[in-house]
Every structure is written in structure tokens, then in C-alpha cells.
């Protein structure tokens, strides 16, 4: 069997985590880094091999088969069971490629970026742990395995955000990230419990069954039908609960608050975890459950759409006003993930014979495609930002400006990625974003135009960032000590690789999309597993390109110059708006209020008081009562023999009298 080595994809990073975690402190920095990178290179090779084998295998009835090379029962739970295994289908194989590529780039990049840092070995150990967990998440054969690795990626993210543990903001950010996602995971868990209880299964074996309209598989007849019979609301409820979990991980409004703070972690980590892979876990989860969504909960999908639209708009608006380059990128990530969510949400059901019709296919395919392209160019942007921070030693845009002379490679790759995210033809972002907007237009023109507007905002704030960093006045004061210099090869090489992918994919898919060729993204990944040919809608493509170019021109007009009179005037005209956007529309403050004031002050503290004073007080009162009772009886035992005699005599007389009376 060609997939028999696939278990190594999970095992190798796990081993390198254990080796580095247990023995890392005794190693040289270089050795530790090499162990991590080598094992990851092997994983990458294996992933590419698996992907190659999977996508070149013969389709059955024009559909990629779902393959489960390994699956064993890890823990029996009554009539349910908790399995561990590997599931290969188009989306998991695609994710395999994305994760291993970005992770390998980050491993290489970190050699330069983390050079000489204390805890270098620990850093590589955590990277391995994260990679293992993320791969396990996408390869999961059942929802419980997914949840388990879901928690593991959460912990790896916690550990990596808090990598600089002596710094207070890093501690706070890591705690916040973990607790916010944990809060969302609680809903995920309840969703899993509901789903598992009513369908008697945690398995993903519906994948590939339902979308084909084959209502005859045992899983649908037995498990799903049972849940539907118990109540039509059950599957939608379970799915929405799971979506809340996904929204937490994917930083959807209002659970997005952890992601901007997570930028306290090392920049390569932000590139890997908080831009390319972990944050799209929520999108992946919806894609994984997509057959159920579309068959049994089509109405509930509008929740996904509107959450996505609100998030995309909100994050784009905030991104326009941030001054920390990583924060801009973080909000841009939130906004782009929201695009993917919207894309999945707008896939409305509709069968075309046995296969889903183009409409349902389009949104799903576009979402996955955007996930792929976004992972590449956003990782490139973050890594580029890392090079800049490495050179300038600050995240603040005010301290940058005019860096294009000093860092040519970073400049070019950053520009290409900006063009990609802005949606300019021949760059990868164009193909995927255009498909998303097309899908939205078909769903509802309102959503379509809103998304077009947000795409324009994206182009605007990305070029604001670009000009702020590479053009404009050079901050001579900040650079007085040493001039910024280009990063070493270990850091620029990943940038180049990611850029090549962005451009290569962009050029091919743009041409293929206009010409209607096969072999584009849709041929590999589509909702039904069929060969889906991408056809651009020329009208929409032209509109969105023109709008993107206009926004870029606007950004150029405002931000390119040495001084920025228009931008300054805008600040002065709308100080409150700017301040609100800068403060992220006070979302963090609201959450802070809820958690600290309400939960800590008004729930936990009274409960602790109640416990110490009321519950414990009751028992102390009982003890006190017993003590007092003893004290009061004690005076009878006076030790005065004459008193005893009086009592004795009185008693005798009384007794005698009583006896006489009877």
C-alpha cells in the first residue's frame, strides 16, 4: 500500500519533540535546530509524496476516494468509541501540504531569527509539538480525535506565545489566547457530545457519502437518520455549537480578541500558527463537517455567513488604524479567515443529479483555495515582517520608513505578497478571492458587494502598511546606532520560496481560470471530490480588480510621500473614529470588564467568601456550639465537696419525697 508510511507524518515530529524536550537542554543550539528541521524535512517529503500519490490515483466515478490507512480504537466508551487514525481525502491532503510547507519554511527561518536566543532548543521542541498536533488535527478520522489535537494545538500555541516568559505582555497574551479558545472549545465539546450521543458515532465516515446524494450508505441510514428522527434541530444545533468552537480558534468576532495579542510570540510562530495553520482550523472544521451542514443545516449556514461578514469588516476597519506592523497583519489575518468562512457559508445546497451543483461546489472550493493561497502569502508577509523587526528591533511603523534601500529581498517579497492579498491578477490571492466574491454574488448581491468593499479595504490597509514600512521618511534617529541590513540567507530563502509559490500558483490559476483549463485548484479539492473546473466570471473579476487597483492608488496617494498631509488631516477630522479603531472598537475592554469585573468580582469572590464564611462557618459554628456546651457543663464539676454534699442531700430528699408521694 502506498500510504503505509503515512503514520510517520505524525510520528516523526512527535519523536523530535520528545527528543528535544527531554534532552534539548544538553544540546548545542545548532544540533537541536537541525534535529527539528531534518525531521520536518522528512515529514514534508512524506507529505508531498502522499499528496502526489493521492492526487494521481485513479478516481472512482470521477471522485477522489476517502482513504483510511490506519484506524484503531484507542478508548472504548460504551457503544461509542474513541478512535485514532489517519484519514486522507482532498482537504486533509491539501492541508498536509500547506502545513508541512509553511512549517518547514518556519523551521529554516527560525535558524536566523531565533539565533542565539535563550531557549532555542525549547523553541524547536514546541514547533515540533505544534506541527505534530496540527497534522494530527487535519488527518483525524473522527471528531474526537480532531478535538484532542485541537486542544494540543491550543496548548502549543499557548507555550509558543509565552515563549518570552519573563515579559509580562507575553504571559498575559498566552493566557488570554488559551482561555478564550478554551471557552469556545467548551461549546465544541458540547457539540461533539450532542452529535456523538444522537448519532452513536464520532466518525467522519459521512465524508464523501452525503455530498454524492447517495442516501443509501449505512452511516446515513443508521446513524444520521437516528439523529434526525430524534429531532430535526439536533444536527444543526450540534453543528452550530461546533462552529462556535471553530470561531474561537479561527478568531471570529467576538472571540477574536486573543489573536492580536498573540503577536507577542516570536514572529515565525505568528507566521506558522497565527496566520497560516492553526487559525484556519475552524475553517477546516467547517469544511470537514460540510456534508452535514449542507444536507441537514442549510439554514444555519447563514450564521456562518454573517459572522464571517461582520468579522471581515470589523477586522479590516481596525487594520486600517493600527500602527504595530504585526497587529496590522493579525487583523488582516482575521479578516481573510472571515473570507474563507463566508465562502463556506454561501455554498447553498442544490443537487445536480448525483453530484452537487456548481453553486455549492464554488463556495467550498473557493474557501479552501483561499485557505491555501492565504497560508502561503500571509506566512510570507509575517516572515517578512520578522526580517524587518529583526533589522529595526521594533514593531512600530513610526520607527520604520524608507527600508526598501536596505532590504531589497524582503521588500520585493513583501510587495508581491501585498499584491497577492490585494487581489491583483496573476498573483494567487486574486484567483481565490475572486471565486469567493463570485460565490457571494450568487448567494446574495448584498453579501457580494459588502465583500467586494472589504476586499478594497484589504488592498488599502495592506498598501498603507507597505508604504509605511518601505517608503516614506527614514527614521534617522532610530537608525542612528546601526543601519538596518538585509536578513541572512536562512531568513530570506523561505521568503523567496513562499513568493515563488504565490506567483507560480497565481499565474497558472489566473490563466487557467480565464481560459477554462483543468488542473487548477478545483481539480484537486472540491466539495464533491469531483474534477471541478474554475471559470472566472469576467465581469466580477474585472470589477474587483479595478476596485483593488483603485484602493492601491488611493493608498499610494495618501501614504507614499515623505509627508502625509491627507492622512494627518483625516486623523484630525475624525479623531474619535481613529481612536476607536486603534483601540479595536473597545472589544478587549468589554471582555476585560466581563471577565474581571463580573466573573472574578461578582462570582468567584463571593463564592470563595461564601465557602469560607457560610459553609465553613456552619461547621465552625457546630464546633463552637459543642465547645460552649462543654464549657457550660464544666462549672458543675466545681471540685467543692461541700457543694456536692448539698446536691447529694437535696437529691436524696427530693427522691425520698417523690417515692413517698407515689
Amino acid at each position, binding site marked *: 500500500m502506498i500510504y503505509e508510511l503515512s503514520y510517520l507524518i505524525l510520528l516523526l515530529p512527535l519523536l523530535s519533540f520528545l527528543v528535544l524536550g527531554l534532552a534539548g537542554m544538553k544540546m548545542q543550539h545548532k544540533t537541536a535546530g537541525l534535529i527539528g528541521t531534518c525531521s520536518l524535512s522528512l515529514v514534508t517529503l512524506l507529505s508531498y509524496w502522499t499528496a502526489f500519490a493521492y492526487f494521481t490515483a485513479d478516481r472512482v466515478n470521477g471522485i477522489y476516494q476517502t482513504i483510511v490507512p490506519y484506524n484503531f480504537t484507542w478508548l472504548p466508551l460504551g457503544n461509542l468509541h474513541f478512535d485514532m487514525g489517519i484519514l486522507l481525502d482532498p482537504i486533509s491532503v491539501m492541508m498536509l501540504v500547506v502545513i508541512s510547507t509553511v512549517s518547514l519554511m518556519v523551521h529554516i527561518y527560525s535558524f536566523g531569527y531565533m539565533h542565539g536566543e535563550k531557549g532555542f532548543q525549547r523553541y524547536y521542541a514546541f514547533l515540533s509539538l505544534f506541527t505534530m498536533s496540527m497534522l494530527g488535527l487535519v488527518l483525524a478520522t473522527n471528531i474526537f480525535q480532531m478535538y484532542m489535537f485541537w486542544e494540543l494545538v491550543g496548548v502549543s500555541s499557548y507555550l509558543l506565545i509565552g515563549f518570552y516568559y519573563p515579559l509580562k505582555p507575553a504571559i498575559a497574551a498566552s493566557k488570554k489566547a488559551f482561555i478564550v479558545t478554551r471557552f469556545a472549545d467548551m461549546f465544541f465539546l458540547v457539540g461533539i457530545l450532542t452529535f456523538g450521543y444522537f448519532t452513536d458515532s464520532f466518525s467522519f465516515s459521512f465524508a464523501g457519502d452525503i455530498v454524492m446524494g447517495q442516501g443509501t450508505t449505512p452511516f446515513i441510514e443508521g446513524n444520521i437518520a437516528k439523529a434526525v428522527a430524534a429531532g430535526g434541530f439536533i444536527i444543526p444545533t450540534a453543528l452550530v455549537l461546533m462552529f462556535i468552537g471553530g470561531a474561537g480558534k479561527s478568531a471570529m468576532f467576538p472571540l477574536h480578541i486573543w489573536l492580536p495579542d498573540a503577536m507577542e510570540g516570536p514572529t515565525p510562530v505568528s507566521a506558522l500558527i497565527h496566520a497560516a495553520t492553526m487559525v484556519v482550523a475552524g475553517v477546516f472544521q467547517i469544511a470537514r463537517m460540510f456534508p452535514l451542514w449542507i444536507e441537514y443545516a442549510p439554514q444555519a449556514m447563514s450564521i456562518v455567513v454573517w459572522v464571517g461578514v461582520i468579522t471581515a469588516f470589523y477586522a479590516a476597519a481596525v487594520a486600517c488604524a493600527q500602527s504595530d506592523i504585526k497587529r496590522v497583519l493579525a487583523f488582516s489575518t482575521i479578516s481573510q479567515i472571515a473570507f474563507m468562512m463566508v465562502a463556506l457559508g454561501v455554498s447553498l445546497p442544490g443537487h445536480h443529479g448525483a453530484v452537487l451543483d456548481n453553486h455549492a461546489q464554488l463556495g467550498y472550493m473557493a474557501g479552501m483555495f483561499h485557505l491555501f493561497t492565504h497560508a502561503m502569502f500571509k506566512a510570507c508577509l509575517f516572515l517578512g515582517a520578522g526580517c524587518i523587526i529583526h533589522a529595526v528591533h521594533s514593531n512600530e511603523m513610526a520607527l520604520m520608513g524608507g527600508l526598501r534601500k536596505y532590504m531589497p529581498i524582503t521588500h520585493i517579497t513583501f510587495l508581491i505578497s501585498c499584491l497577492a492579498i490585494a487581489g491583483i491578477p496573476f498573483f494567487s490571492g486574486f484567483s481565490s478571492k475572486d471565486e469567493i466574491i463570485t460565490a457571494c454574488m450568487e448567494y446574495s448581491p448584498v453579501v457580494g458587494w459588502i465583500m467586494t468593499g472589504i476586499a478594497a479595504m484589504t488592498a488599502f490597509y495592506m498598501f498603507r502598511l507597505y508604504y509605511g514600512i518601505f517608503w516614506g521618511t527614514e527614521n534617522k534617529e532610530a537608525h542612528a546606532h546601526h543601519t538596518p541590513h538585509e536578513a541572512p540567507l536562512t531568513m530570506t530563502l523561505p521568503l523567496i520560496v513562499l513568493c515563488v509559490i504565490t506567483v507560480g500558483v497565481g499565474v497558472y490559476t489566473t490563466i487557467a481560470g480565464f481560459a477554462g483549463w483543468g488542473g487548477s485548484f478545483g481539480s484537486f479539492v472540491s466539495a464533491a471530490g469531483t474534477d471541478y473546473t474554475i471559470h472566472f466570471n469576467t465581469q466580477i473579476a474585472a470589477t474587483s480588480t479595478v476596485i483593488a487597483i483603485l484602493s492601491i492608488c488611493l493608498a499610494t496617494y495618501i501614504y507614499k510621500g515623505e509627508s502625509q498631509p491627507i492622512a494627518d488631516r483625516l486623523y484630525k477630522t475624525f479623531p474619535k473614529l481613529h481612536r476607536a479603531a486603534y483601540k479595536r472598537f473597545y472589544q478587549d475592554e468589554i471582555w476585560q470588564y466581563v471577565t474581571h469585573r463580573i466573573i472574578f468580582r461578582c462570582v468567584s469572590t463571593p463564592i470563595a467568601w461564601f465557602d469560607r464564611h457560610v459553609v465553613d462557618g456552619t461547621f465552625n459554628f457546630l464546633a463552637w456550639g459543642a465547645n460552649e456546651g462543654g464549657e457550660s457543663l*464544666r462549672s*458543675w*464539676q*466545681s*471540685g*467543692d*465537696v*461541700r457543694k456536692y*454534699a*448539698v446536691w447529694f*442531700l437535696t437529691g436524696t430528699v427530693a427522691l425520698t419525697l417523690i417515692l413517698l408521694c407515689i
Partner: protein
Amino acid sequence: MVPVECYFVLSALLFFIGVFGFVTRRNLIAMLISIELVLNAVDINFAAFNRLLFPGEFEGFFMTLFSIGVSAAESAVAIAIIINVYRNFKSDSVESITNMKG
């Protein structure tokens, strides 16, 4: 012949004088003397009742003699204790001995 009631009156008087003394006096010796009075009251009763109820028999008198013997021994022990108490507490007042008070 003295009527038998006189003995009873005498013994009753002695008994209550003894009890009164025991309850009111604080001096250990005085309390001991009071106890002796109570015992003597009992002795008189024994003798008087023996004479009244079983004339010609001697169990009551024997009991009286036995009681006198016991009270002698008891006084000896009590006085020994009192002397020791006095040595330890430098007092023969009952109120000074409160070590075993609860």
C-alpha cells in the same frame, strides 16, 4: 427508762448538726468532725432500733461496734490526707484544694 423516741430525736439532731457542719465549715478538720457526728447518729440509730425491734439479739450492736471501728480507721486515713494536704497547700481550708476542678 428513757423512752425510745429520745434516742431518735438525739440521733436526728446529731445527723443534721453533722450535715450542717459539713456543708458550712471550710476547715477540713471541722468537716471531718462533722462526718464523725453523722456516723455517730447512725450508730445510735442502730443500737436503738435493735433494742426496739429485736430485743435479745445483738446484730445491731455488732454493727455499731463495726461502724465505730471503721470510722476510727477512716478518721486516721482522713487525718493523714489532711496533714498531707496541709503540707502541700499550706492550708487546711477546703477551698484551697481546687486542682481537680473541671
